[in-house]
């Protein structure tokens, strides 16, 4: 019987070696596989490459919510379109690590998604019209195709993907919720090993086949978030209440 369910986050990340390239989407709290990131920090791997959409400083204490920034001391390279935002102190939180040699590959949000897709589809690269005439083209091959200028973008190939989904079955089929989908689907397709943390594991057949977003073939390990885990419904509600006490975040998040 196929069963991809793993009992703990620590077990799920146990084989990740130093130097691994790991996709872990994040739009602040949304789409962030918090429990897997926390487990990876506990494990203490070194020299990893982190691929994510939103690399910003921690908004909450580490016991309340974990974002990719907790991995900074363990990172060799960062691939992201968002390094800090002005309202949360800009790039200051990362500067010390850049000074110590952290490599940052900055890309546009769309381009990162297509570089991940190119990795999944085994492209050697692709010609991208976005970024022409900007710093993004520096050091890259340029080419005119049918009269339009393009930049050669290389794929991003992942060793591991951490995915934050809503429901899974033991076969690894995933459905997502709201804006937690992010780049979960494309990261899952592109990684050698995909690990999903999910709100709920359901019986095979409970997920309508027409509604499966990531098919189980792309998913290797599934961990259900326990009641005392991060990113539970209760925890997320508590974070929203706490936002009222964090001035820059409160201003940012309430319209």
């Amino acid at each position: 019987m196929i069963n991809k369910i793993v009992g703990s986050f620590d077990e799920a990340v146990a084989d990740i070696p130093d130097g691994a390239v790991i996709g872990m989407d994040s739009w602040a709290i949304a789409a962030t596989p918090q429990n897997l990131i926390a487990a990876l920090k506990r494990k203490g791997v070194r020299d990893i490459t982190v691929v994510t959409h939103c690399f910003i400083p921690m908004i909450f204490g580490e016991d309340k919510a974990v974002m990719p920034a907790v991995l900074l001391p363990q990172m060799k390279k960062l691939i992201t379109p968002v390094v800090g935002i002005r309202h949360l102190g800009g790039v200051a939180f990362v500067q010390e690590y850049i000074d110590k040699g952290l490599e940052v590959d900055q890309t546009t949000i769309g381009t990162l998604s297509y570089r991940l897709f190119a990795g999944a589809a085994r492209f050697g690269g692709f010609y991208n019209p976005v970024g022409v005439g900007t710093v993004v083209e520096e050091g890259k091959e340029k080419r005119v195709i049918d009269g339009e200028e393009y930049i050669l973008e290389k794929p991003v190939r992942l060793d591991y993907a951490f995915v934050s989904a809503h429901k899974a079955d033991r076969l690894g089929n995933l459905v997502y919720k709201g804006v937690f989908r992010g780049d979960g689907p494309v990261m899952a397709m592109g990684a050698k090993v995909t690990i999903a943390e999910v709100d709920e594991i359901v019986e095979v057949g409970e997920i309508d086949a027409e509604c499966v977003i990531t098919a189980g073939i792309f998913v290797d390990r599934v961990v259900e978030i326990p009641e005392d885990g991060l990113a539970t419904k209760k925890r997320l509600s508590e974070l929203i209440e706490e936002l009222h006490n964090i001035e820059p975040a409160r201003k940012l998040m309430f319209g």
Partner: protein
Amino acid sequence: MKQRLDRDGMAKRAAQELKPGDYVNLGFGIPNLCPPYAHEDVVFQTENGAIGYGPLVSADESEKADFHYHDAIGRFWVPAPGMACFDVVTSFCMIRSGRMIAILGGLEVSEKGDLANWSTGGEFGGTIGGAMDLAYGSKSVIVTMEHTTRDGKTRIVKECSYPLTRRECVDMIITDIAVIDVTPDGLVLREVAPGWTAEEVQGLTGARLTPAPDLKEIAV
């Protein structure tokens, strides 16, 4: 007396450009203030993966807030009937498809419509985000920004001095004192804020403005 539009005023003026049925992505800052002023059939898209979402959640109704439902800069909204959620690959196919209007913030716009809006330069730029995708793929690009910096330097220039987002991509500039079209013949001053003359706006502008024959006062 000379008036300057405040941030909401600029957002209101930008929202007047939106018609029922338009699909719109909003940048960070002034653009994000547009939705309450737009027609109810304007459809907003957020690049982190939703289109057709409902009203924003204010700080005193935080029981409605849910981290599954917020825009790209983290502002909570409520789900609405007919909304669709999707992944980022799909999201940027929408953004690059020419189906959407982008309202973006700006640091500088040049007389040719070059946009600089993501970095004030320096050794390490900061956040590129999705602006380059939006500036490339949108049906039209409207930039909202203050006409001058806090220390009075013009933001509308012959050549941008900050790192570019994209060359020749801006169609319209809405500032606190003017509405300007970017045309193949240069910048055309369409509207001025109440109390301002075309000459006074020109005096705060680093590129030549051609006043439109039907130059009007901004009404918001």
